């Protein structure tokens, strides 16, 4: 056995890479995870952790429902309670958004997803800290919830380790070793690691890792911000309060630590040039300036639904970097230019919730070249060679536009069939 050789090398120790490694290892595959800094300290460590199963299509919703089941299995295997099932609500203020909710309720019910309309007075009772006088309609998903991303990552890490996954930290990948067009391994400052299968789960750095083989991956690194209010006796937020999504104001959130977490997918967001950041960039050290414009927009939006929130509200602000794709869906699978190079990135702010099922999908693709799920919409090669998705500036523009319309666009029957929802 050559040292530093395994069946698979996973590049990236966030939830995508960890879940994939764990699922492969459970199927008897030897895996080495190479993480440039610390496990779970990239986008994973900054994520809000909402698990909303409802997405724009039945297939995606089913995937996420399975994901929740996988989390529950994980809880047993890791011996830890991770999932907090608070249920979640969506609220609508306009006729369009009302229709959106009705469509989603119908779709959900058609696949046995537990979802029902919720009367506004019921909503007000469950969430007394929310303004409801302008709410036209709401729906209730009792099986939704949230978790602490760090705990999910730790569970993947532990179960993976129990099945023999090797983890190397402070180990950025600086080169890809190829035999012609076949993957052979990677180069790192700590030496070479060999495997015929490589998984690019490098999050915001994914397109740079792809660049090591001259491959164009249409992902972009975009900024995100959410606030977490300090507990306020005048506005108590029960820890089992439902998560919420308010697409009209572009905000989402949940209960956190006695206060309220509110995040935003605003029309504008920060952009990051990952190449200018050092390989040991510590995402957990990111913070918002006092006069951060995106934070100010978040506060303004949050105030529309939670009037007691303003710039003076005692709060903690979390900023981080997400990996967006032009359609808001991840890239899972191989690209035509190489053999053995798998991509697993572009989760567009939904990495945590997708990670449990994505690990299964990736292991199916790697081991059998097909998945039991309908993965047509998340295939890695869907933009391969498509004009307008090849140049870096085009890609960044499209990803930025997708982020901006993430909550802005309508879902349900009025939605563009190619796109998905948050």
């Amino acid at each position, binding site marked *: 056995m050559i040292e530093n050789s395994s069946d698979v090398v996973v590049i990236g120790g966030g939830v995508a890479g960890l879940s994939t490694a764990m699922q492969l290892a459970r199927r008897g595959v030897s895996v080495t995870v190479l993480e440039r800094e610390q496990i779970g300290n990239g986008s994973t460590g900054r994520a809000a952790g909402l698990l909303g199963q409802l997405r724009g299509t039945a297939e995606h919703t089913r995937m996420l429902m399975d994901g929740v089941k996988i989390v529950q299995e994980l809880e047993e295997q890791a011996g830890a309670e991770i999932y907090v099932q608070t249920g979640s609500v969506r609220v609508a203020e306009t006729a369009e958004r009302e229709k959106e909710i009705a469509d989603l309720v119908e779709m959900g019910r058609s696949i046995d997803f537990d979802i029902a309309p919720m009367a506004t007075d019921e909503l007000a009772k469950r969430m007394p800290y929310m303004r409801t006088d302008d709410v036209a309609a709401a729906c209730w998903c009792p099986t939704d919830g949230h978790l602490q991303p760090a705990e999910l990552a730790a569970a993947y890490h532990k179960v993976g380790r129990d099945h023999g996954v090797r983890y190397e930290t402070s180990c950025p990948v600086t080169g890809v070793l190829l035999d012609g067009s076949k993957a052979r391994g990677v180069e790192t400052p700590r030496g070479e690691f060999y495997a015929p299968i490589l998984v690019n789960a490098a999050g915001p750095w994914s397109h740079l890792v792809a660049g090591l083989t001259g491959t164009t991956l249409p992902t972009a690194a975009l900024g995100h911000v959410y606030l977490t209010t300090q507990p306020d006796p005048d506005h108590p937020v029960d820890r089992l309060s439902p998560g919420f999504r308010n697409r009209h104001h572009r905000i989402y959130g949940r209960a956190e630590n006695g206060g309220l977490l509110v995040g935003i997918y605003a029309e504008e967001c920060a952009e990051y040039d990952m190449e200018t950041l*050092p390989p040991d960039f*510590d995402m957990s050290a990111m913070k*918002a300036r*006092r006069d951060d414009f995106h934070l*100010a*927009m978040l*506060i303004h939006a949050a105030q529309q639904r939670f009037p007691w929130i303003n*710039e003076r509200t005692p709060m903690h602000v979390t900023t981080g970097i997400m990996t967006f794709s032009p359609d808001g869906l991840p890239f899972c699978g191989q690209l035509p230019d190489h053999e053995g190079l798998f991509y697993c990135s572009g989760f567009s702010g939904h990495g945590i919730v997708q990670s449990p099922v994505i690990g299964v999908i990736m292991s199916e693709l790697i081991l059998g070249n097909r998945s039991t799920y309908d993965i047509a919409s998340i295939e890695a090669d869907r933009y391969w060679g498509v004009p307008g998705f090849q140049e870096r500036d085009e890609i960044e523009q499209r990803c930025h536009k997708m982020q901006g319309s993430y909550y802005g666009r309508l879902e349900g029957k009025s939605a563009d069939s190619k796109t998905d929802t948050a």
Partner: protein
Amino acid sequence: MKILVPCKRVPDPDQKLRLNAEATDVDSTALTYILNPFDAIAVEEALCIRETTHPDAEIIAVSVAPAEGEDDLRTALAMGADRALLVEHDAQLDSWNVARLLAAVVEREQPALVIMGKQAVDDDANQTGQFLAVQLGWSQATFASQVEFTETGLRVHRETDLGIEIIHVSLPAVVTADLRLNEPRYASLPSILKAKKKPTEYTTAEELGVKPEPRVRLLSMELVHSQRNCEMVTSARELILKLRETEVIKG
């Protein structure tokens, strides 16, 4: 009443730092700079004073910095300061000389109160406020955790090793802000937009008639690495022994 708030531009203290090739300073490429957190507290205190007891207070943010220092003055303006002054200076300056420049600004602006952070999170010197007070011949109230106005001046709670010390100082005075003085606000959208119209003036050490005379010469810097090699012990007693060896526990 005029309140002057000296603001320092510092690297975000939570980032990983690298040194420049000569090891004489941190490598500023790829570093994020922010308004010194203690100075943000000072700005906030000035804003609170205006909101509670002195509605006519004019709040001036001043920074001794290279041109980029404008960013951090803009933060102060977005929080609510009325105008800003940048004393453009590129080279490193020790606390004594920063104080001299600030003293010249004070002579020009004639504020009744100077509030500034107790220390900057880059050099952690905790000297500039005290040097400024001396150069002005003013009282100082350092490490303030609470500031109130009284008939004779200020009543200030100070955080010291021995507990909270309450002193009275007459105005004008230099107050240096400690961590618990307040929780600085974020800027609201309207406030950020309003700040774009607020004036920023520029000046130099020369214009202020101050020729820096270094008191401290920085020769070199060294990074202190944070890797940890965990030494596993097998008993509570052994743990105590090890901790005593590092001197973090006495005995």
